[in-house]
């Protein structure tokens, strides 16, 4: 399974390196979303500082949707998914590989978005350990749930519009928990960020286990 995951992740990342869709489209899109949030709150700097974690994770969610759609459009466009199904690769390995490739792209994006909220929203970074752990676990949640739902919607003609509709409610608790954990890390709330991190860990475990177990059935149904 792990060998298959590495093979699929390497393939997906190689495709992204060659196509540069993440670099040329997803990253600018996420930065524009942050910028628009800034315009929406205008000159209300205290409010922007308070809202920065939530806006950050909303931008990650939107960009994550694009990354997941891209991850499956390369499989669907010339029928490559049939090749994956016929290859003998373990479905769990395909799931973990595709999720890992999406996660790697999202981590890179989050580094840039973190710089974005520092520059645009004047966020003062603090609690690095909690922020980093939250980012990694939330990314795992977004990637795992995204890949599972991406497979579910892949064979449908309306997948471009259906995927956000399916995925956003599933990831809403992740955005909420990640936002609260970052607010605690940044000293914007008095809550215990590590408890929110624990909740995120539960979500990550559920999404990863569910995807690992169910991915074979999902790609057979497409």
């Amino acid at each position, binding site marked *: 399974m792990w060998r298959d995951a590495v093979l699929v992740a390497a393939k997906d990342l*190689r495709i992204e390196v060659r196509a540069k869709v993440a670099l040329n489209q997803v990253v600018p899109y996420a930065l524009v979303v942050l910028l628009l949030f800034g315009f929406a709150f205008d000159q209300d700097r205290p409010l922007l500082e308070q809202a920065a974690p939530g806006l950050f994770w909303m931008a990650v969610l939107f960009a994550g949707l694009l990354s997941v759609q891209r991850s499956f459009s390369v499989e669907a466009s010339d*029928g490559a998914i049939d090749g994956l199904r016929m*290859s*003998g*690769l373990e479905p769990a390995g395909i799931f973990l590989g595709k999720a890992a490739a999406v996660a790697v792209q999202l981590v890179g994006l989050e580094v840039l978005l973190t710089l974005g909220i520092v520059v645009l929203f004047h966020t003062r970074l603090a609690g690095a350990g909690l922020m980093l752990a939250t980012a990694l676990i939330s990314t795992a949640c977004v990637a795992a749930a995204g890949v599972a739902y991406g497979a579910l919607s892949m064979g449908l003609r309306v997948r471009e519009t259906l995927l956000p509709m399916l995925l956003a409610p599933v990831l809403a608790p992740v955005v909420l928990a990640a936002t609260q954990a970052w607010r605690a890390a940044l000293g914007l709330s008095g809550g215990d960020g590590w408890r929110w991190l624990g909740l995120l860990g539960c979500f990550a475990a559920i999404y990863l286990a569910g995807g690992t177990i169910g991915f074979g059935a999902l790609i057979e149904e497409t």
Partner: protein
Amino acid sequence: MVLSVRLRSAVALAGRYPVLAGVDLDIVEGEVLVLRGPNGAGKTSLLRVLAGLLPLSAGEISVLGLDPVAESRALRPQVGLLGHRNGLYDDLSARDNVRFAVRASRLPGRSVDGALDRMGLSGRLRDLPAGRLSAGQRRRVALAALAARSPRLWLLDEPHAGLDSEHRSLLDDLLGDVAGEGATVVLASHEVLPEELTSRRMAYMAGGMVVEGGGPVPDTAVTDAGTDGVVPAAETGGAVTLRWHGDGQGAEVPSVA
């Protein structure tokens, strides 16, 4: 005589529409079978059933001695399927596409360059992104990926599509060679085929059934698709009652048992 493929009264549905409506077919190991028939006759569906991508609703199936759905993990690495689409990643080079197909099948990468050579893909063509290749070149990359995997069963849907005469000959030679080495080839086509292939065994499909050339099974066991008719639920394994039309345009399912 070892059978690679054995189908009995095979029924497959797409929604409620029977794309296979009671197929009986035997294919012997090392045989090249050319499937002919009009559009919508069920050729593509038959190939997908043999690959295990489309499950049977009724009937019996054995492919390389395995059930294509229940034992798909064991079967699929031994089967190569080339559909209407090539299954290539546009942003990967021809070589990378073939290499990924080989490594995904847990095979060593030694066969990659030989397979590309075999399909006439040499020089800079190998390193161009597949998305920049012509339709015929893409078809050849997909065929090279199959050749590099050396499957025991080749399922080819219109494999000559987009190929020029030189590369059609390359493909025909390849198919002759792999059959000579013991692999079984099932090729669906309604193009004019070269003599090498027309001299092989032909099976004709219409209305989701093999109406001629299904194999050693008695012809009376193959439902006559020349006229409209009905196969009762009891004869399709109890799953569906079939009603078909003899115009080669498929069948319909008026009721599900």
